[in-house]
């Protein structure tokens, strides 16, 4: 809570895709102890453009240098101009606080991680790929985009990551939605992690819900999710879940106070994205109630 008013300096920013950039911030208070899936709150220098701080998933965090990188879409004002946060230059200071929320939980036994992202969703998974590679796991990233020009550059990923692309217009990789690629990797994967548009996440959640039946005996050896039932939403329960998702729900205060970021859980219980999320295991959420 004491970090709610901290600032950070922009060290470098570069455009990586049309309308998207990666900014490196010197923010030791954020980098220290940050984990994949957590987010930061970035304050626009001009509150008339964006009154509230914006929640942005951590792209990478390096505790040794205090540098965190954020992958951000350039917001546009009503008049089409990039908002001030898109015009930041190296040396500028902005309000940057965090990390907030709960991270992805990887089962120590998982060797094969399947990452599924579409569009800017990759920003929430990038750090998980780093951590998994560092821990010696095999990582496959399935990425969906409208066209080749929107495809996340492979040069920004660790070399160890297998990168498979689907585009809606077929200009690169598989012609079709990224979900077409999932069945081919499902049996290989020990756990899956997804981020992107709500429709993609809902489809993956429905698919994952029927996994146990589809996979049959293939799943029995691991007893994942078997044994003593864990309380819904606990780190252990999430670790046992096959699919975890990171929601990009806007967060108002990040202090678990304003309740603006709440989504409905499976039992109709409101869950705050900033405190119980932004990472959830798929069965925790009421997917029909999500917009």
């Amino acid at each position, binding site marked *: 809570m*004491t970090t709610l008013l901290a600032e950070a300096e922009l060290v470098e920013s570069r455009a990586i895709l049309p309308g998207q950039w990666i900014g490196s911030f010197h923010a030791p208070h954020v980098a220290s*102890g940050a984990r994949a899936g957590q987010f930061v709150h970035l304050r626009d220098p001009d*509150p008339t453009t964006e*009154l509230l*701080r914006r929640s942005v998933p951590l792209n990478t965090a390096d505790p040794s240098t205090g540098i965190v990188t954020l992958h951000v879409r350039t917001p546009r004002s009503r008049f089409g101009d990039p908002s001030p946060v898109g015009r930041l230059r190296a040396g500028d200071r902005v309000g940057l606080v965090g990390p907030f929320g709960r991270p992805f939980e990887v089962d120590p036994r998982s060797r094969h991680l399947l990452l599924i992202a579409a569009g800017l969703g990759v920003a929430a998974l990038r750090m998980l790929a780093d951590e998994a590679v560092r821990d010696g796991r095999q990582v496959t990233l399935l990425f969906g985009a409208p066209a080749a020009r929107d495809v996340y550059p492979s040069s920004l990923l660790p070399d160890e990551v297998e990168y498979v692309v689907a585009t809606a217009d077929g200009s690169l990789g598989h012609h079709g939605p990224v979900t077409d690629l999932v069945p081919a990797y499902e049996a290989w994967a020990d756990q899956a992690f997804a981020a992107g548009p709500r429709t993609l996440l809902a489809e993956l959640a429905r698919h994952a819900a029927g996994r146990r039946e589809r996979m049959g005996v293939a799943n029995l050896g691991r007893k994942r999710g078997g044994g003593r039932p864990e309380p819904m939403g606990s780190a252990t329960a999430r670790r046992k879940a096959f699919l975890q998702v990171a929601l990009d729900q806007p967060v*108002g205060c990040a202090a678990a106070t304003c309740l*603006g970021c709440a989504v409905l859980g499976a039992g109709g219980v409101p869950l705050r994205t900033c405190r119980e999320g932004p990472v959830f295991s798929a069965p925790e959420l009421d997917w029909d109630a999500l917009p």
Partner: protein
Amino acid sequence: MKAKKRVVTSGPQTPTRRTPTVRRIKSAIVPAGRPSPASGVRATHAAGPAAPSGIGQGDPDRATGPSVDVAVDLGRGLVLANPLVAASGPFGYGVEVADAVDLGRLGALITRGTTLRARAGAPPPRMAATPSGIVHALGYQNPGVDAVIAKHEPTWDSWSVPVVVNVCGESAGEFVEIVRRLEGLAGVAAVELNLGCPNAARGGTPFTVDPDAAASLVAAVRRTWDRCLIAKLSPGAADIRSVARAVASAGADAISAIGGVAALAVGGPGSGAVLTGPAIHPIALRVVHDVVGAVGVPVVAYGGVAWLDDVLDFLAVGAVAVGVGTAALADPGLPVRLAEELEDVVAARGLASYRDLVGIARR
């Protein structure tokens, strides 16, 4: 820091989470025109022990303020130490932000809207950013009055800041039932009735646009509640002055205005959404101006306060206290900072009391 050797036996490395060290830096720059901080006694409530100090809320060394009179009397013994209050919402029940915000330096803390029974709240999305504001519909998510009392009232009782419970309901009976449960609790200084709530008896028309319904609601609560009663109005009535007169004559000790302005964002929150933030400040100014002109009771102003100028505007049209809402989401230290800035302005202008700033735009 010296790196420690780490032996990895198996499994993934989970970095131990450390709390970042935050060093407080004393500023050498002292704003001009402020008398020595050691002098003077702050009004009533500041006499109690100060809550733990937060980071970045103005001057951390400022134990006592300038010797200017900033106390506000809202009636029936509720005296605020200064005119800046935390409006209902952004600070929840106060406990959520108590370690980041020095609540003891606020005039009052208005809680989140509280209903008789627990409410799960609205489905997402609950919030959408719009130019200079947010459109939101939280659906009154709260644990219900009994749970709130059991969980938070003892804590409120230990605080020096007066806690005002914001009460929400769909009928006068529901409001009365909630207030009955709050009766006699030492930690509750006052109630604020949210008249922006939909009135089930009139097909969901908010109490605040209906002088008769508003008056009978306030009168019903008045019979139960003998401490300070604040009626909170929202815009939307054909003539807000008639609503203000109705609730004042029904027994409201003070009127607060405005709640959110009914609004919509396509793809955003659903029914019941309201707009708050700097976008509504001019609307709020007009409502407060009209209400002050219509009634003799003290008026607490809310609506898009983000800078000291907004506070001075509200005082100038006749409000005696000013609340900070939406802007405190992005900057929780703002209400306390504005309280200090207001004291500085009063001192710098050589005024004996902040009340010399109240109503100056009406004369």
